[in-house]
């Protein structure tokens, strides 16, 4: 059977990289005594596939993975055993059986929703912030620098910013953003912050708090969670 697990990364788990997370999950599955199915080949590995990676330092309440098991087990039992086996920092939020899997999670998911809290520069006025956000909305293109294996390059992220709203709370900017993720492209919250910063000294330089609210699938204008499809 294939099961889909919705899980969260708390404050304590937010420094796990994607690789750390993959290792940690496999070990938790093993401790939970789940009968993992393995790939064929030279060095067989468990059949686990993750939705889009979460950046180091970011918390989340809406991450997903699919895992294949050799035997049928009740969802309640899996949930109980896995909750017990997960280390601090990771929590199970939901499990369902995936009966017909047409596409992988990365191919399905195309939106990541974030809440971002950024400490503001003391002297900055509220209007300047709203102005900067509005500029971002109006811009026809927004170039950011990405570094990869072949050096750095300029990428336009405008089409990947689906929604961006902000309000001021106690010298912090609270941003809500829907950003593109998945096999079609990815926009990182840090890139959006960098684009805002370019419009003047807005932020204090203290670390922002980034929280992923969830991952969603938009198909023909309809928004679904990976648990609903």
């Amino acid at each position, binding site marked *: 059977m294939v099961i889909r697990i919705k899980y969260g990364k708390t404050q304590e788990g937010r*420094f796990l990289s994607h690789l*750390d997370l993959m*290792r940690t999950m496999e070990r938790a599955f093993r401790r939970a005594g789940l009968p*993992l199915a393995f790939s064929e080949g*030279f060095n067989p590995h468990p059949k686990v596939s993750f939705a889009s990676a979460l950046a180091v330092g970011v918390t989340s309440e809406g991450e997903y993975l699919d895992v294949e098991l050799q035997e049928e087990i009740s969802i309640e039992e899996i949930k109980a055993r896995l909750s017990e086996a997960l*280390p601090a920092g990771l929590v199970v939020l939901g499990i369902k059986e995936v009966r017909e899997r047409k596409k992988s999670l990365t191919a399905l998911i195309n939106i990541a929703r974030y809440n971002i809290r950024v400490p503001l520069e003391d002297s900055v006025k509220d209007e300047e912030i709203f102005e900067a956000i509005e500029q971002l909305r109006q811009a026809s293109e927004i170039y950011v620098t990405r570094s990869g294996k072949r050096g750095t390059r300029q990428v336009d992220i405008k089409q990947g910013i689906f929604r961006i709203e902000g309000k001021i709370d106690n010298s912090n900017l609270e941003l809500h953003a829907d950003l593109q993720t998945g096999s079609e492209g990815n926009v990182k919250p840090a890139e959006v912050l960098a684009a805002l910063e370019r419009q003047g000294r807005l932020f204090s330089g203290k670390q922002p708090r980034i929280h992923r609210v969830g991952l969603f699938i938009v198909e023909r204008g309809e928004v679904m969670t990976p648990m609903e499809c």
Partner: protein
Amino acid sequence: MESIEHILENEILPKVTKPLRYVGNEHNSVKKNWEEVKLRFLFAFPDLYEVGMSHLGLRILYHLVNEKSEYLMERVFAPWTDLEAILRQENIPLFSLESWRPLTDFDCIGFTLQYEMSYTNILNMLDLGKIPLKTKERDETYPLIIAGGPCAGNPEPLAEFIDVFVIGEGEEVILEMLDVIARHHEVFGKNKEKNKLLDTLASLEGLYVPSLHQIMHKEKRIVKRVVKDLDESYFPLKPIVPYMEIVHDRIMLELFRGCTRGCRFCQAGMIYRPVRERSGDVLKEQARQLVKNTGYNEISLTSLSTSDYSGIAELTKSLLDAYEKQQIGLSLPSLRVDSFSVDLAQQVQRVRKTGLTFAPEAGTQRLRDVINKNVTEENLLEVAEAAFYAGWTHLKLYFMIGLPTETMEDIEGIAELAYRVLRRGIEINKEKKRSKQPKITVSVSSFVPKAHTPFQWQAQDSIELLMEKQQYLKKRLKDKRISYNYHEAKLSFLEAVFARGGSELSDVLLAAWKEGCKFDSWTEHFCFDKWLKAFAEAGVDPMKIANEPGDIDTVLPWEHIDYGVSKRYLWEEREKAYGMKTTSDCRYGKCWDCGVCPGLDVKLSIKNKKGGGECGNQN
């Protein structure tokens, strides 16, 4: 005002590389209530998290102490330079992983001494913890600074910094030591009468208190503590499972302790005597629990020379049978040079492919006899053949250069041996119609004379000579199917200085640390010039320590430290080395009277077959 914890978590750790090194919270880590315990002990590993967490000793001591309700143990590792810079700039003291408390909040801090080149990190960690470096500068209000591990075999270079050294196997003495400290606190109050406490600690077997030794106990020998029965000894069955990848990221099943093959350069082979095995049944049960409690997909059969375990074939088969279905593999980190080992390794391949590494150590039979590495050229070629036939195409070979009596002929012998192995590989690949070329990796380290070994009196080759030998091999091993690597000779030189030197090195260490030396075993940080400056400042000639031989009358800096192996035996072994006479393994016959069993009232313990040596056996 934000708390330090808050600042660390929200402002500092997001900026450093691998923040998981510092946050703890791993599965099976232990967080205790500070108010409910009598003593708080901090285990300090003077290197990075991923190195320290791979250390079996830490796993054993951490869980042993934490299983006692009256004590707690937390961990601290050396912070990488990026975090260190921020801590210094923000004036934040180094903190423990579990409770994020500063070092000064603990009653005791125990450093493990795994290699000499971590010593500067010890000073750096104390300093980052805002603890005065020298024993005499620390009053009762500071934590007691303890150190143990293999390098405690020559404690003098650190004697000015450490309050108490633990000689021998830590799990045997740590609770006794904590009981004494706790009782002292009850009687005299916390942080009172440090000298009285040290005096009581000095009376415990296996503990060395340098500050009192010189004045009061000059004649006293400090005899190592030893676990007598491995089946009865503590072993953690719920070890910490790190989030981030560590160097040895797997279950460690400890098959046995000690090794009596008797390689004359090997410190581990002398200081961990006698051989004590754990029973197969105990190991299988431990494996079962460790698999269940960790979720690891690999079990490492840990010991010195793993294939020497008396029940190795049966144990390997039984573990593979039990865990193959779950894709849990085995690894055999240290294999003897014989075809039996290749059979074992082949078994292990059932689940996971591994590389094969063998250590002939020297290039000629003459020199292998000198060091008592009882391996012949036929053994090695046989092994290589068996491995190539079994399907391996890549073999790793370990050698050492700078060994006593070595000539350029022996160095040439390394190259010839490598080529002979390579040629066999080419032939067999041809025979088997494989298109793949064989590959041989030749790793060459430099001999470092170590305390408590037959070669403790030996001079190390000069840096220049070591480099000449390294370059010779580099020229000889130019074949593209051979990859050749060697250790930094200057680092080996410093290791020899700290392995053989005495208390005069305290000043050097302090000066080197002030020059900025730290993480010396990390190539990107090692700076020999700073060390040379430190030696000059302290007025110590390092070459006199590393490059001049001693003789039987030489008073060695570790004369008062006793691992049970007699000086007479070590000297006899040294003499036999020069006569190219070998010494057999006492597990399989004659006892050579090294002194360990009668001296420490402990027995060689082979759990899985009849016969074998018994101490005093003269046949």
